[in-house]
Structure formats: structure tokens, C-alpha cells
């Protein structure tokens, strides 16, 4: 449209100089031709709906929530409308994160915080969500643009920053802590990690361990044919640093995988599936229905979905994780009492059919006891379910010095060392 208008302006300038009387008629025709597309564009903008105060269960064409509220009528969810009270942070607005954000937006989530440092590229168009006309925008702004059009009821916050840098991390941490309207422990109810690298996952892990914030991690393999989601509850489940990350073995022989000239492949299908698994788990967690999966893998080549549970590692290298584990152990009596009370209440209330369905294809490695005793993770390699592997090795056992070693060399002044390196650099 802008292009056409500029061309029109140029031609009008030319017309001033021209003596040709038919030129005016041609110009009129062109302008007339532009009227109806412009009207259509304006109508499209006008079609954006206004905000809705209360979610209605009324089944009418004009109610965007009717099919969601039906979940409540059918007894799947107790109180669907509670979704409006929840805040979710999504870190990484790429092939998985953007789709996850759209799903939560369409579900009517209360508030979404979006984090990414990248901009939209044409190279992203093999994935869902972003459009070619958004190329060059920050991913978070482009996402806000699209999502606010889909559902204006959702409060959207865009954070275009790199959380792995010290400065970015402080902003990230601050935004997660900022109280939201309904004021719970931290400002968000759930953090979803949709990043594509280990470095950023470790940063989300750090933030969530420090805040005691429950989060879910998601990932798609670099060969685009497998993925996973994982629930992390600081102190209660393994954190991301407790053991080397667990990934789904694609079954492709590493030696036959050709890596020359490429970093990573991606498919909209695998990413869409993983986003769907992630948000399904998030909805179950937030709205308290079904079973929340602690770990769910997806091997697309074999259509195989391994599951497992992971206990925290008492020797975890992350001090905040160890602290959360201690707190979790201390709160055990209170938890037991609450669980007992709940069971009694349920027993008196119901002859309802059991929620549990046998999942014979599921493999659970650990029993249900919640005592974080000795680490099962040291022998994790042996006890992993079929089809799951560790992405990285564990660090070699290494005794860290108990006290800072004091010897001549260690006492070196930092400025002196800087000077030495500078001298080498300039020689």
C-alpha cells in the first residue's frame, strides 16, 4: 500500500508538468482501484474484538471462550476461568516458544511475559507463527503484535534481552519477582523455557532455583527429529544442573549424522508437537487436571514417548538447588499432614471412578517416595529408560580447594595480572 501511494505521488508530480488531458483520467482510475483494498484493510483492523470482562460459558458464535468453558461443563476442569489469574513467563520466542505463547493466548491466560534477544528472520519461516512482514522486528515485539490481535484480554510484556549476560539476568530476575495483581509468592505462576541452547537453560535454572519457582523445560534436538518436555520444581525434582541433561535418542547413528556445513535443522512439525506437549502439561499444572508429566520425551522417527522421574541430586553443583532441597525436606511433615487431610476429604466425598489410567507404555524409573535420599543419578546412565540418553558427561570428580589457596602466585594482584596480559598483548 505504502509503495503504491508513493508511486502515485511521483506520478502526480509528473502530471503537474504534463499537458496530456487523458493522464488525469488514468490517475482517477488508479485511485479508484485503491479504494476497495484500503477499505478491506480497514475492515480487518476494525474486526479486532474488544476486551471481555468475564469469561462466559454461553455457546454463541461471538464468544471466544465458549469451547474452553465447555471443559468445565464436561467436568475435565473444575474452574477454567482461573486461567485469567495466572501469569506465565516464556523464555525464548522461537519455533517452540512462539507457538506456546499463541496456545496460551488463545486459552485466555491472564498475563504472558516474553523474553528473547533475537529478531525475526526469513530463515525462521519454516517454523510456525511469525510472518514474512515481521522480518526485522524483535521476536518479542512481533509476538506481542500478533498475540494482542488474537486475544486482547491477555496482558503481554515484551522483554528483548539476553538473559545469559549479567545485566540481562538481573532484569530477568526482577521481572519474574515483580508482583502481579493477584500477588502470589513471585510474580509468575510458571516459567516455560523454550530456548535452544544449554547455556540459556542453565540460566533459567539458576533464576528458578533462586526464586523457588516451578518451571518447565522444553527442547528439540538439533537434528529436528526428537524433543522433550520436563517439569522442574526446585528442591522437589532434579534441577537442570543436578545431572547432565537428558535427551531422547533419535536412534540415528551419530557417526552417520552429517554435520558439515550446518549447525542445526528444524521442522515446524516437531516444534509444534513439543509446544503442544509443553502447553498441555502447563494447563494441567495450572488448572489442576490430569497428571502433570515430570519428563516426557518424543522420538518422531519411532513415534516413541519415553517418560521418567528424576530426584534432586544432594551433591548438585548449584547452591540454590541444595538450599531448596533442604527446605523441601524440612517441610515434609507439613506436606504429609496436608496430603492425609486431602485424602480423607476425597475418600468421604466420592465413589467416583479413578483418574489414573494404566499407561503400560510409560516407564517410570523411580518409586513414588519423596525422600531425597542418596542420589540415584550417579548411576543414572544405567537406570535410564530405553531411548533416553545423557546429552553431556558428568564432570570428573574433582576436589575443590576448601579454603582459597594462599601461595605467592594466588596473591597476585588483579591489576598486576591485567598489566601482564596487556604487556603480552602489545608485544
Amino acid at each position: 500500500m505504502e509503495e503504491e501511494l508513493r508511486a502515485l505521488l511521483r506520478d502526480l508530480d509528473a502530471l503537474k508538468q504534463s499537458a496530456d488531458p487523458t493522464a488525469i483520467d488514468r490517475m482517477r482510475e488508479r485511485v479508484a482501484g485503491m479504494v476497495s483494498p484500503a477499505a478491506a484493510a480497514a475492515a480487518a483492523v476494525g474486526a479486532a474484538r474488544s476486551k471481555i470482562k468475564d469469561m462466559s460459558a454461553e455457546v454463541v458464535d461471538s464468544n471466544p471462550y465458549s469451547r474452553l468453558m465447555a471443559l468445565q461443563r464436561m467436568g475435565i476442569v473444575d474452574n477454567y476461568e482461573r486461567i485469567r489469574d495466572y501469569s506465565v513467563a516464556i523464555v525464548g520466542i522461537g519455533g517452540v516458544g512462539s507457538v506456546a505463547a499463541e496456545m496460551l493466548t488463545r486459552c485466555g491466560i491472564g498475563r504472558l511475559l516474553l523474553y528473547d534477544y533475537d529478531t525475526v528472520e526469513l530463515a525462521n519461516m519454516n517454523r510456525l507463527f511469525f510472518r514474512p512482514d515481521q522480518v526485522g522486528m524483535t521476536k518479542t515485539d512481533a509476538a506481542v503484535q500478533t498475540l494482542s490481535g488474537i486475544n486482547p484480554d491477555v496482558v503481554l510484556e515484551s522483554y528483548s534481552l539476553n538473559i545469559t549476560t549479567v545485566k540481562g539476568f538481573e532484569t530477568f530476575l526482577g521481572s519474574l519477582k515483580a508482583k502481579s495483581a493477584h500477588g502470589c509468592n513471585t510474580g509468575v505462576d510458571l516459567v516455560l523455557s523454550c530456548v535452544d541452547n544449554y547455556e540459556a537453560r542453565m540460566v533459567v535454572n539458576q533464576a528458578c532455583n533462586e526464586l523457588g519457582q516451578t518451571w518447565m523445560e522444553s527442547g528439540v534436538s538439533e537434528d529436528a527429529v526428537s524433543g522433550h518436555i520436563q517439569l522442574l520444581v526446585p528442591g522437589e525434582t532434579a534441577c537442570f544442573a543436578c545431572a547432565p541433561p537428558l535427551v531422547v535418542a533419535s536412534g540415528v547413528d551419530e557417526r552417520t549424522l552429517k554435520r558439515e556445513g550446518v549447525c542445526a535443522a528444524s521442522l515446524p512439525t516437531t516444534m509444534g508437537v513439543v509446544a503442544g506437549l509443553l502447553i498441555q502439561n502447563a494447563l494441567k499444572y495450572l488448572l489442576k487436571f490430569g497428571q502433570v508429566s515430570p519428563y516426557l520425551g518424543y522420538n518422531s522417527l519411532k513415534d516413541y514417548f519415553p517418560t521418567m522421574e528424576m530426584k534432586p541430586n544432594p551433591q548438585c553443583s548449584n547452591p540454590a538447588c541444595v538450599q531448596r532441597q533442604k527446605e523441601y525436606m524440612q517441610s515434609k511433615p507439613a506436606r504429609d499432614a496436608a496430603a492425609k487431610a486431602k485424602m480423607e476429604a476425597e475418600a468421604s466425598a466420592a465413589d467416583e471412578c479413578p483418574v489414573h489410567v494404566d499407561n503400560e507404555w510409560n516407564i517410570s524409573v523411580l518409586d513414588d517416595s519423596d525422600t531425597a535420599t542418596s542420589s540415584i543419578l550417579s548411576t543414572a546412565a544405567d537406570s535410564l529408560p530405553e531411548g533416553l540418553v545423557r546429552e553431556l558427561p558428568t564432570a570428573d570428580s574433582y576436589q575443590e580447594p576448601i579454603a582459597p589457596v594462599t601461595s605467592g602466585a594466588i596473591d597476585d594482584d588483579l591489576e598486576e595480572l591485567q598489566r601482564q596480559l596487556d604487556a603480552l598483548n602489545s608485544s
Partner: protein
Amino acid sequence: MPRAGENHIPIAGNTKVEEHGAKGEGRRAAAAAAAAIRSMEGWDRGTKSVVGEIPLLSTRAGPRDGDAWRQRLKEEYRALISYTSVNKSKDNDWFRISAANPEGTRWEGTCWYVHNLRRYEFPLQFDIPVAYPQVAPEIELPTLDGKTHKMYRGGKICLTVHFKPLWAKNCPRFGIAHALCLGLAPWLAAEVPILVDSGMVKHKDDEGAPAEAAAASGSAAAS
């Protein structure tokens, strides 16, 4: 054509560890270094021998850890000083790096690679990540961003399948110097020849003429 990697990976040299600190610590460091090198399946002999000459670090601290980070920073400097000296002594100097802020959380410099007897130089930068040293720094070569598939967005180099496992295994003993030696050096050796031969990267002496021609034609079109 010179062999890839020849310009900065000396083949000579034993796996000797510089003693730093008390004698006992030196022995332990030597044992650790030997273990680190034993775990380097899939790496060439040259890289193995050089990495053995970089002092190992011991403080597990990241940029948010206050005094412990200052301690770690000292160890980083010691390793970098040692590595740079070794490179110079072997006529194999290939990078310059220094902290770009007083906290030592951002580093900038240059690196270069000689291909067909010509030197190609690239600016180099990275931040020390919050989760360091559990995760390695992500080294960026901003001028090569978008020129090779072996790179993530922002010019972050795509490391080999061997790098991350080795880094994880040796945490917290590997530092910035190790990341340069085991991450950046092999990347340059593998990618620069391809970038030059395909014409994606031009030598700075060859850049002048075509650029001027383009500028001239550009101004002609505008007038």
C-alpha cells in the same frame, strides 16, 4: 595449500603443566591435566599438547559470585598469560583478548588465521555467562555473522560435538584460554579456508577496489 590448523596448533611439545601454587597443588593439577587430556578422544595431537600447557583453574565461580569471581578472574588471567606466552614462544600467536569492563564479565579482542600465506583477522567478543563456568562462554565473531552456517545468530560460533562434553567433564578447571584453544582455534582452522575459498571472506587488501567500484556505481544510479 597449508594444512588446516597448521598455523596455530604446534605439533611439538610435551604435555607439561605449569606449576602454580603450592607443590601439592601442582602435582594435583598435573594429574588433573593428564586426566583432561586422556578424555580428549577425537581431538588432534596438536590441540591436545597445547591444552596441556594451559594452567587449569580451580575456583568454581561465576560473574555474580563477588569475591569468588575476583579469585576466578585471577586464575583466568594466569591461564591467558600462560597460553599467550606459549603461543608466542612457538611463533604461533593467533589472538588478542582483554576484559572490556572492570568486572571482567565482557571480553573483546581479535583473532587471526593464516590461509594461503595471507592473514585474515576478525574481531572477537563474548560475555561471561551467568551460569559460568558450568557453561562455556559463547564466542562471537560479529563480522562473520550471516556468512556461514557454522554459526548461530549474533555471530556465535557453532562448536564441534567434541567441545561441550569436554568442557562439562572438566568443569570448573577449564577457563577462557581453554575455550579459545579448544573452541575457537579448531573453528577458525575448519571454517576460514572455506570462507576464503568460497569468496565469502575477502582479504582486506582485496576489499578496496570492488567496494570503491560499488560506491561509484551507486552514486551514478542516484544522480
